[in-house]
Each structure stands twice: as C-alpha cells, then as structure tokens.
C-alpha cells in the first residue's frame, strides 16, 4: 500500500471514529444540545 493509500485509509477510519464520538454525544445529551450542533452546520448551508 503506498503512502497516499495509507493516508486515505487512515482518514476513512478517522471519520468512522468521529461517527462513534458523535453518536455518543447524541446519546448523552439532550435533543436541544445535539440539535444545536447539527443545525449550526446545516443552517449555514441551507437558508
């Protein structure tokens, strides 16, 4: 596996780890709290 492929594989793994982190955040916080975080992203893109 060349260096670029290794980087891409690591990036993909990092994103899956972030999903784990985010799901834990959603599970452990109220709807208002996690919604604010998600809505900050989405409302910046969709008016």
């Amino acid at each position, binding site marked *: 596996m060349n260096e670029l492929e290794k980087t891409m594989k690591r990036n993909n793994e990092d994103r899956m780890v972030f999903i784990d982190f985010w799901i834990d955040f959603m599970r452990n916080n109220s709807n*208002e709290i996690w919604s604010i975080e*998600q809505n900050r992203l989405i409302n910046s893109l969709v008016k």
Partner: protein
Amino acid sequence: MEIKFIDKHNIRLDKELNNLDRFVIDFTNLLERHKINYVIVSGYVPILFGRTRATEDIDVFIERINESKIENFLKTVEGKYQVLNTSSDKAFQMLKEDVAIRISRKNEILPNFEIKFAKTKFGEYALKNRLKIVIGDEHVFISPIELQIAFKIYLGKGDISGRNKDVEDAYHIYKLLREKLNKDELKKFIKELEVEHIARKILVDLYE
C-alpha cells in the same frame, strides 16, 4: 436524545428542526395535500437522525400516479417551486421513463427534490412499508430503516478507496438505532443486495 419507536410504522423523534427539515416538511406536506403517497430514501434519512452533513438533493419515491395528477400538483405549487430539469408538461413522461424530475424552490437550485416513481422491488417495498417519523406537530415518511442501511452499503460498495459517505451514513444509522432494529430483516436485505462482505466489516456486531 429521545427516539421512541411507537409501533412498527411510527417513530417519535425529538429534535430541533433545522432549515433542511423545514424545506422537506413544507414540500412533503404539499404532496400529502394532493394525496400523493411518497417515501424519502437515501441521504436525508441519516441527516434527519442527526448525521453531521448536509445534502444537495432529497430523494423521494412517489406512487405511480396519472398525468393529470402530476400536472395538477405542479400547477398548484408553481408559485413557490420550479421543475429544474424539464418543463412541467413533460414531467410525467420523464417519470414514466424512470427519469427523476428535480424540484427546487422558485429562483433557487439547491437543495432540490429528486422525485421518481417507485418502480423497483426495493422502491415499492419502501413505499408500502414506509415509516412515519413524528417530530413535534410535523411528520415525514421515510424508508424502513433496515432497508435504508442495506441500501446505503450497496450504494457505497463501488467506492472503497476514497471517502465513502454512503457507508458512513449506513454506519451512523446503524450505530444510533441498532438496539431497535430487526436484525434478521437487516441481514435479509444485506444478503439480497449482495453486500454481506462489506456489512461484516462495518456492522461488526451484527454478525457476532
């Protein structure tokens, strides 16, 4: 986080609606007002359940309806919405030929709805077995979760080297809702779509 599975066809989801949710609900309310059965599939489903990304289009399957019903619907909504990829009078023909029509808010392009007739076996299943997601006083209909996860893995199967948002979407929904899922049904869809080899790597505990 509060997600309550009321019964096999109804889920109550407590969240603060964002602009994309409102965009979707405004339009699907119009479909319902015109008695057009619909189901939302693909990218918006994980976003509805909190995924941290946006989307340029919302994929919607509608039941096969006749030309006058389509024309009447488009005529009624034309003050607020526009068909992007054809004229309103040719929309039915496109749908009939299994080509999606794209509908956006007037004078805007993004986001937009990509609307098709539910013609495939899986599309028909999604429409027939759609889930009602109730959010406060609003609601939307989405594909059964188990089919959605399997289909997202299927969509992502050809892309194993770069970023794979479809597989990430499948993983997000599975991780969030796994305690409530019908595991046998999920495995059945994964098998039917011939993506078990990928699912075993991503949804590891499903096969333990």
